[in-house]
């Protein structure tokens, strides 16, 4: 294919000044390029589409740890532990520093919130004939800041176990596996 020097016009639909006619106020679109761009956008967005939506809304300043071997997060009540505060389903339980400094294990407000949530789950299970007689799915997602000391997480875990949530998932950011040396 022959190579031509580029024309001075950047867009053939925009008239040049010296063409004699009145300057048009309309600029034409390159439809082929636009449709190509739209198609690429749609493909990219479809690939990154997640039907589950956003399962955890991270509080400001919370940094999750990175891990390689991870699974898909499921919908469950979220217990978030940031450097500032501890929250359960968006309700503030206490300040992280205060809970970290306390010598006692129990966090009464957290236990109350978890027990209330469990009671709600049990009521829902009783009302549902399909779930009647089956154990309730008592799982929680724990999203904790990676820079925290384990002392705080441990207290949170123990209180969750005490309130009937011994099965939990740590929320992490997935990272790719390191390349193996040949």
């Amino acid at each position, binding site marked *: 294919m022959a190579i031509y020097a580029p024309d001075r016009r950047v867009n053939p639909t925009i008239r040049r000044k010296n063409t004699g006619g009145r300057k048009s106020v309309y600029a034409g679109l390159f*439809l082929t390029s*636009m*449709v190509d761009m*739209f*198609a690429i*956008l*749609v493909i990219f*967005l*479809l690939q*990154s*589409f*997640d039907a*589950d*939506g*956003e*399962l*955890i809304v*991270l509080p400001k300043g919370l940094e*999750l*740890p*990175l*891990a*390689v*071997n*991870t*699974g*898909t*997060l*499921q919908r469950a009540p979220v217990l978030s532990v940031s450097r500032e505060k501890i929250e359960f389903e968006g309700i503030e339980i206490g300040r992280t520093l205060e809970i970290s400094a306390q010598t006692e*294990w*129990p966090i009464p407000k957290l236990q109350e919130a978890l027990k209330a949530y469990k009671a709600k789950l049990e009521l829902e299970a009783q009302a549902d004939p399909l779930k009647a007689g089956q154990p309730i799915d008592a799982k929680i*997602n724990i*999203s*904790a*800041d*990676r*820079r*925290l*000391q*384990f*002392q705080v*997480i*441990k207290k949170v*875990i*123990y209180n*969750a*176990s*005490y*309130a*009937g949530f*011994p*099965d*939990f*998932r*740590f*929320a*992490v*950011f*997935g990272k790719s596996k390191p390349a193996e040396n040949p």
Partner: protein
Amino acid sequence: MGVSIDQGGGKGRKSVDSELNLIPFIDLLSVCILFLLMTAVWVHISKMSAFSQPSGEALISHSEVSSINQAKEERDYDFLIRTSGVEIKQDGRTLGQFDLTQLEAKMDQIKKQGGAAFDPKISLRSADDVVYDDVIYVLDQIFTRGWTKVTVGGF
């Protein structure tokens, strides 16, 4: 109609080309882009599963949850994480203390000894002053070896 197909009917050969009506096509693409942009999840969060361990007897002995085993759990290995390193115990016998770089080699050795189907019960416990990121790192290393029976607690 979105696509106009030449019906032919003339004297010439029937055309195989069809003409796409671009306006509804662009409308559809725009709606798709808007929908996908609005529902896009930009931060993908994953999970690491674990169970809590009733090692804090003072707390767990008063637990109202019957599903928690209050007796000392049976486990094959104890991973005790401290700021100085990770101590591995097998049936209560210390195998050594390893820093995070040595840990991987030791775990590979345990896996090699156990075989491919080896899935031991592991109790992962951490000291108070250990950073949560390090606990997740050790947990990740355990899952990397295909070991899934992990309980998490403190000491």
